[in-house]
């Protein structure tokens, strides 16, 4: 009876039901992802085609260009305007993401070393859940914190009147600034890094650390030379994730970075960090209502394509770096 039963339904199919179902699911997800990429690129193409490499360059006011692009879309297709030079947005993204990631890597590295290697047991038990919780706080909460606390503090206490008047009429130094954006973004992405860095540090083989300690190398040197070195692939992975989150962050940055597509100029001296700017992702958020105008639609999709491409590039760089470091062992 039992044998008949098996033959009737075929052992092969019933055995493979799970993998075929899951396989189909994965294929659907991959197909959707491809469709997404293709849609974004197709929609973005007119904007890139009309501007060429100048799309990434500087020139003119981004605000005026976006306005012209939007208005031309209300007329007929023959007179669509696509001129758009995104450099202030790209520069702002680079500054804010770069600044935040640089500070966050530094802080996260030492925090995770402390949590894993030096913190007493009770403290570790408190810190770990707190860090994991912080890593999952929605960004809009950080945005509120920025608007209610950080921005007014910078505007009222750090920026001086002479600094404000030196750029009067061009930009307002009212607290919505590079500094506010970098600070809050750092707070946002650092817990993510700490969480992944400490996973990496924990997965270092205890024998390697013990061996080093047995040779009489002190605890700090052991941690630094063996633990941190071995966990480097995990650190790259954590940094990649954090960079990707930082590049795509829109809501919080739209709230605190200032809303002007201005390219902060390091040559301005200290004022530089108080200058407002607007990265790529918040530009999309702020202009959603222009989506009805075809050329504006294309321009916003072009921004989306650049974001997508940067995220992919970051992942790729991370993958290459991890491959190169695979011989060191520990991964998260």
């Amino acid at each position: 009876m039992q044998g008949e039963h098996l033959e009737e339904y075929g052992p092969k199919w019933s055995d493979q039901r799970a993998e075929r179902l899951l396989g189909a699911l994965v294929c659907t997800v991959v197909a959707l992802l491809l469709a997404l990429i293709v849609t974004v690129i197709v929609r973005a193409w007119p904007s890139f085609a009309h501007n060429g490499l100048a799309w990434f360059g500087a020139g003119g006011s981004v605000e005026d260009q976006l306005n012209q692009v939007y208005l031309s879309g209300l007329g007929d297709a023959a007179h669509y305007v696509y001129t758009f030079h995104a450099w202030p947005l790209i520069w702002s993204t680079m500054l804010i993401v770069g600044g935040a990631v640089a500070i966050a890597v530094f802080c996260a590295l030492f925090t995770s070393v402390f949590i894993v290697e030096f913190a007493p047991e009770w403290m570790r038990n408190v810190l770990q859940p707190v860090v994991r919780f912080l890593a999952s706080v929605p960004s809009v909460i950080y945005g509120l914190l920025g608007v209610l606390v950080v921005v007014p503090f910078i505007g009222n206490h750090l920026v001086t009147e002479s600094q404000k008047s030196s750029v009067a009429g061009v930009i307002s130094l009212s607290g919505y600034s590079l500094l506010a954006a970098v600070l809050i973004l750092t707070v946002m992405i650092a817990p993510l890094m700490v969480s992944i860095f400490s996973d990496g540090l924990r997965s270092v083989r205890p024998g390697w650390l013990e061996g080093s300690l047995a040779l009489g190398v002190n605890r700090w040197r052991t941690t630094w030379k063996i633990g941190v070195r071995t966990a480097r692939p995990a650190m790259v992975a954590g940094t990649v994730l954090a960079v990707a989150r930082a590049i795509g962050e829109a809501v919080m940055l739209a709230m605190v970075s200032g809303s002007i597509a201005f390219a902060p100029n390091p040559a301005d001296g200290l004022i530089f960090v108080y200058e407002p700017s607007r990265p790529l992702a918040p530009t999309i958020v702020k202009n959603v209502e222009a989506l009805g105008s075809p050329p504006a639609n294309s321009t916003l999709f072009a921004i989306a394509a650049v974001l997508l491409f940067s995220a992919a590039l970051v992942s790729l760089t991370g993958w290459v770096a991890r491959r190169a470091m695979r011989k060191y062992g520990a991964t998260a």
Partner: protein
Amino acid sequence: MRIKALATWAVALLALAAPASAGAVTLIGSGSVAAQPVLQALFSTYTKKINHKVHFLYTANGGNAGVKDVQGGKSQFAGQARTPLPSDAGTTYVKFYLDGLCMDVNPHNKLSNISIQQTHDIYRGLITNWGSIGGSGLDTTIDPVGRDTNGGTYNFFLQAVLNNELPSSNVNALTADGLVVNAVKQDPSAIGYAGLAWQGRGMKTLKVNGVPCVPKKISVEPLKYPLSRYIWLVLPGDGSSSPKALTKFIDWARRSPLAGEVILKAGGVPAFNKKRKRHH
């Protein structure tokens, strides 16, 4: 768009929860943030006192976005704070109630009156220091704050103050009226604009051309307070295809004395509502 999706889900959930009250109608609207406090007050009064079976779902995503929703069939009506533009084809604008766009400064500022010309010059970047404006008691750099392009308030300000020129680059364009209020409240050198309903929340309301921004002075025909405006309801097509429940609500909101009181209390100025007879 995310807000829209959320709203759709909320409606779906409401629809699941609704069978208890059979025959109930949910009217879906979106648009003006400036009109939100008044609309919400009218909605809840209507559902509580006039017709229990009519419910409302309003997403404040900005007047211009609301009109797009009506054009795309995603909303049955939209709140709008500016006059019709050519891009609003296929919609009907209905005058709803009156609102004043008030100019606000921080309470530290001693200024009490500002002219349209001065406001224009500030937002065009021609005047950048409070010292150039007599009576402010400040000599700091002005931090002008405004709305971003998603708001009908922005378009109204552009038309009424800036002669349709774009604001200068030193104007900080924020995404919501609440953020404008917050910015003015926290920065002694700031100046901003917001509707009547937002006044008095830690900001100082200025007279414009000598006329105070108070309900009594808000009028378009004849124009008294210079930044008076109609808040409009935007309907698809010529308005005749709207559901009965919606037209009934609009009629009630525009005409009834009760709705007039609700509008006034929520920070608007009733334009067409009959006055309740006074008993001495």
